[in-house]
């Protein structure tokens, strides 16, 4: 993939956000908050960082992106379509019968989707498995995993985090979307996570943090993570859930609710003006 300038990356992220709104409005259900919040990071990953070839989605040399929090899939689908994995027009089939865009990702349905997810906590173990395979094969590619902060309620994640440290998986980068919300409320109310930094550090990981909407910061932090040689790296990405749509920002009730036609139009207007 050719790498894009920051201005071009911002434009891609804006288009991805518009896609997300259009897809969810049409589907009538789905999860806007996390998807909108991660659009900047996805744009940077797919248009600047990842070594991948959309017309060769199974190339053994590719970097892998494992989406562990499957309900974020609108941002994955929109980014994959924008990157050329499948026609943009297909985005409007999200969650409909006979669509390749399942409500939660299915690796066998759509090119570019590396894993099936939905039940939280499962992607990170698969990312660890892929990273272990990379080590056995002495391969050069890297494994990126996307998890959410509230996903860390699941015990399986911590099992995987221990294993990544044990095997010193320096080909594994876990990006945690720290947006402080989950379905039923704020993460601090539902299940306090306390310091993810301290937790990861005590589990033997290198911890980096970034502002998930500042492009210079995103690019520099991910590059630093890629170059770290001693073991697995976690990037705590501080994001605003619903970013880019004023009435959705920081509101947990938009975690799992699609906009209606009127709300979608208002959101699209805001996004178009922001370009």
């Amino acid at each position: 993939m050719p790498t894009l300038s920051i201005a071009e990356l911002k434009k891609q992220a804006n288009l991805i956000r518009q896609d997300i709104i259009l897809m969810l409005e049409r589907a009538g259900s789905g999860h806007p908050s996390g998807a909108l919040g991660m659009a900047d990071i996805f744009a940077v990953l797919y248009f600047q960082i990842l070594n991948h070839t959309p017309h060769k989605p199974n190339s053994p040399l590719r970097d892998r992106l494992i989406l562990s929090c499957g309900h974020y899939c609108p941002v994955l689908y929109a980014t994959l379509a924008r990157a050329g994995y499948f026609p943009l027009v297909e985005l409007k089939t999200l969650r409909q019968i006979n669509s390749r865009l399942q409500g939660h990702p299915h690796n066998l349905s759509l090119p570019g989707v590396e894993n099936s997810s939905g039940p939280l906590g499962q992607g990170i173990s698969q990312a660890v498995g892929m990273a272990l395979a990379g080590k056995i094969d002495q391969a050069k590619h890297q494994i990126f995993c996307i998890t959410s902060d509230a996903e860390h309620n699941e015990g399986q994640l911590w099992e995987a985090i221990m294993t990544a440290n044990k095997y010193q998986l320096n080909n594994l980068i876990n990006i945690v979307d720290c947006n402080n919300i989950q379905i039923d409320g704020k993460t601090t109310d539902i299940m306090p996570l306390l310091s993810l930094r301290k937790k990861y550090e005590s589990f033997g990981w290198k911890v980096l943090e970034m502002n998930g909407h500042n492009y210079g910061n995103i690019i520099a932090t991910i590059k630093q993570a890629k170059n770290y040689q001693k073991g697995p790296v976690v990037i705590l990405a501080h994001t605003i859930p619903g970013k880019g749509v004023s009435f959705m920002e920081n509101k947990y009730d938009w975690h799992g609710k699609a906009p209606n036609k009127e709300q979608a139009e208002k959101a699209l207007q805001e996004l178009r003006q922001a370009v």
Partner: protein
Amino acid sequence: MPKENKNKSTRDGFGDALLALAKKDKNIVVVSADLAESTRVWKFAKKYPARFIEVGVAEQNMLGIAAGLALADKIPIATSFAVFSPGRNWDQLRISVCYSKANVKIIGSHTGLGAGEDGASHQALEDIAITRCLPNLVVLAPADYNEAQKALAVAIKHQGPIYLRLTRQNTPIFTSAKSIFKIGQANILQKGQDVTLIACGALVYDALQVAKKLATQNISVEVINCHTIKPLDKKTILASVKKTKKVVTLEDHQIHGGLGSAVAELLAENYPVPVKIMGVNDTFGESGTPEKLYKKYGLDQEHIIKNIKEII
């Protein structure tokens, strides 16, 4: 019938076959959850340390890691006791493995009352029920040491997830090392006319012994070794039942959801005849030797004979 050998377990058959197969196929990797000795992968671990991944007591993570390895073109063998895997990680089995058609071989040892002295917590009596309902998953329950070896070899050749149900206890080796093992193809071990006795796992040996005993009383039992529970060999079972018109099924598993249920589903739709499902009758087990447990819970040869006499 081939001559009986000394007793060995199906987990030993698996472990010995694994060593031989791993030499030829470098893609085979083992993922272990702190039971390497009990699941008989410790020899592999010593010989191939770079292909042995020890995740500790964490079966959910074990299966997820296995799925990730499979998606990266390895052939992962994920081993634990069946009460933990697939017992504890069923969600991971469903989504990370089966939905993705990840080429993982799930090895569940210590199944049934045969797990013995460890007691109810460690006796997997539900594993067939929770695996045979999953799309894309093949479910195998080999009858003895030889068959376990063949089952692993076939499982590794098969592209897709397989659950291999193994036993702790040593049991007679009675199948031939040369006989053909094919997924989905049940073996008729003895032909008969009066009743079809369909069994899986270690109890197949008892089924054969019972058939021999009843032959002396002029009761002719057809014995089917149904080592593949899914996909079920409909053809062989229906052909036999159309002849005998009576069925007894036998498994070291709950009567709900296991081999007997699979056979009953097939017959209810295609050829309804009287069926007696022999298994553990909706109760947990307890500590004891396999022999004493089978007697107490109605799975010994005496009970099999009683059930056959009642149905014919």
